[in-house]
């Protein structure tokens, strides 16, 4: 016989959430433990794969230079990413709703999307030098396309019958856009934003690899040259953390902007109590 425990939906949800968080944390701890034990048991050389304890130790020693690098790199990521959002969403709107823009701009975009964008990075050095600008531009370039492409898909994918209904209300273009087309496109826009967020960290690091005198990418190359593998790992972990934070900011924004969406509420939204 199974006992049915009646719980309030809110309590049930909180419990599920805590359980999930606990499991995720356990996964990470397990990863570090296996890493530490594995390295020690098999006597792996520390310049090949240092144990995590040494990585954290090295990070602790160099925290202030790492913080400076993180600041530089984060600035590049955020500036390039925000620029990409500001330009790509209105561009997607105009491609989705203007025949002229679609026929002229869209084919060019599709072509440019195929160009390996990272290959352009050295060119940016010639054009814009070693400073902040080429990094911002590469971040922009990499995060721009996924946002445009999925936003266009979002604006286009609306059920034509919904628009038929809108037309029977006599609502003008603006009202229809704000009340129907934009909310419909938001889930797809957010999908693009997340892909763009993930790419923007990569773009900043690559841009710093090519030519730079600061930032985490620059530091990474320096430490790599010194065979300081502990610090290489420390910086990789820090870069990942920055990427995760940017991603979660977008995720949080999504929860606030489209609380109704399936990806936000997970599954049917209801919780089956057994």
């Amino acid at each position, binding site marked *: 016989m199974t006992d049915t425990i009646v719980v309030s939906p809110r309590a049930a949800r909180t419990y599920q959430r805590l359980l999930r968080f606990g499991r995720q944390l356990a996964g990470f701890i397990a990863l570090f433990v296996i890493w530490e034990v594995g390295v020690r048991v098999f006597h792996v050389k520390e310049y090949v794969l240092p144990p995590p304890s040494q990585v954290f130790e090295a990070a602790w020693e160099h925290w202030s230079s790492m913080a400076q690098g993180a600041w530089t790199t984060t600035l590049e990521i955020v500036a390039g990413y925000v620029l990409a959002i500001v330009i790509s969403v209105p561009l997607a709107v105009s491609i989705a709703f203007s025949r002229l823009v679609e026929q002229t701009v869209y084919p060019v975009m599709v072509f440019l999307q195929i160009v390996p964008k990272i290959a352009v990075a050295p060119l940016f050095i010639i054009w814009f030098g070693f400073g902040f600008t080429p990094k911002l531009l590469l971040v922009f370039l990499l995060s721009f396309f996924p946002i445009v492409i999925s936003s266009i898909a979002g604006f286009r994918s609306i059920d034509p019958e919904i628009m038929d209904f*809108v037309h029977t209300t006599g609502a003008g273009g603006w*009202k229809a856009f704000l009340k129907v087309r934009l909310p419909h496109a938001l889930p797809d826009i957010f999908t693009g934003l997340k892909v763009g967020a993930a790419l923007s960290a990569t773009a900043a690091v690559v841009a710093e690899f090519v030519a730079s005198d600061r930032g985490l990418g620059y530091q990474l190359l320096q430490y790599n040259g010194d065979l300081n593998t502990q610090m290489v790992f420390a910086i990789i972990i820090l870069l990942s953390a920055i990427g995760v934070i940017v991603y979660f900011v977008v995720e949080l924004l999504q929860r606030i902007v489209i609380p109704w969406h399936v990806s936000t509420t997970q599954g049917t939204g209801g919780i089956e109590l057994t």
Partner: protein
Amino acid sequence: MVSIVPLPRRRPAGDRSAAPVKISISAKSVSKTFRLGASEICALDNVDVEVGDGEFVAIVGPSGCGKSTLLRIVAGISRPTTGDVVTNGKTVDKPVTDIGIVFQNPVLLAWRNVLDNVLIQMELRGEAPGKYRERAVALLTAVGLGDFLDRYPRELSGGMRQRAAIIRALIHEPPVLLMDEPFGALDALTREQMRVDLELLWMRTRKTVLFVTHGIDEAVLLADRVVVMSPRPGKIEQIVDVDIPRPRGLDARHHSRFIEITQHITDVFLSRGVLKSESRLSDI
């Protein structure tokens, strides 16, 4: 025999005025051809329909005969290939706005809960939704959605979605109602109840209603006149007057005229080969 009266025709029993009826919807020689690449599909072939002001007209016909197409043309959201349409006194050359329309699918907005899906009608019409909230809640409660006002469409059953869509078409009190199989997704019981409710609502408000269905029963139980359509290319086979007294309510199924008229329409479909008395599966 059932009287088959060509246009213009007498008003059904119970009509108060003897004066000539104002025409609310008129479709004259309407044809519609869809072009798909090289092939053409003729969905409507020279259809004439008139619906008087305050009249309830049902369209029955087999699947694919162009019922939805005709309704969309009357609403101005699809253009006829030839022919002219007047809806609510105005020649139709763009979407008609003084109508309430129920599509074959609910066509709700996924990001709005049930109540807000009804109120979008007012918001898009530039009205403050707050003024209509009470009426929307009352209507939704009347169709059994009172406990689901703050639910999103994906949390509802198909029949519940369709009921929300019906209320969305009523909230702004349009003089003309266009309904495309509005009860299609409902279970038999809810369907019967909605049918009775719609009749009473119509008797109170006397809206002009054009109601598409493939239920012969439903058409005869609701309408003043039933337009019987033949299979593709959609043509009007017959227009049948229904002189069953109102309100027809739940008992009308036993009315002798109900039985005669539904039998007559069934015979029309039999004669057109839409219905066959032998199974088409028997020789497989």
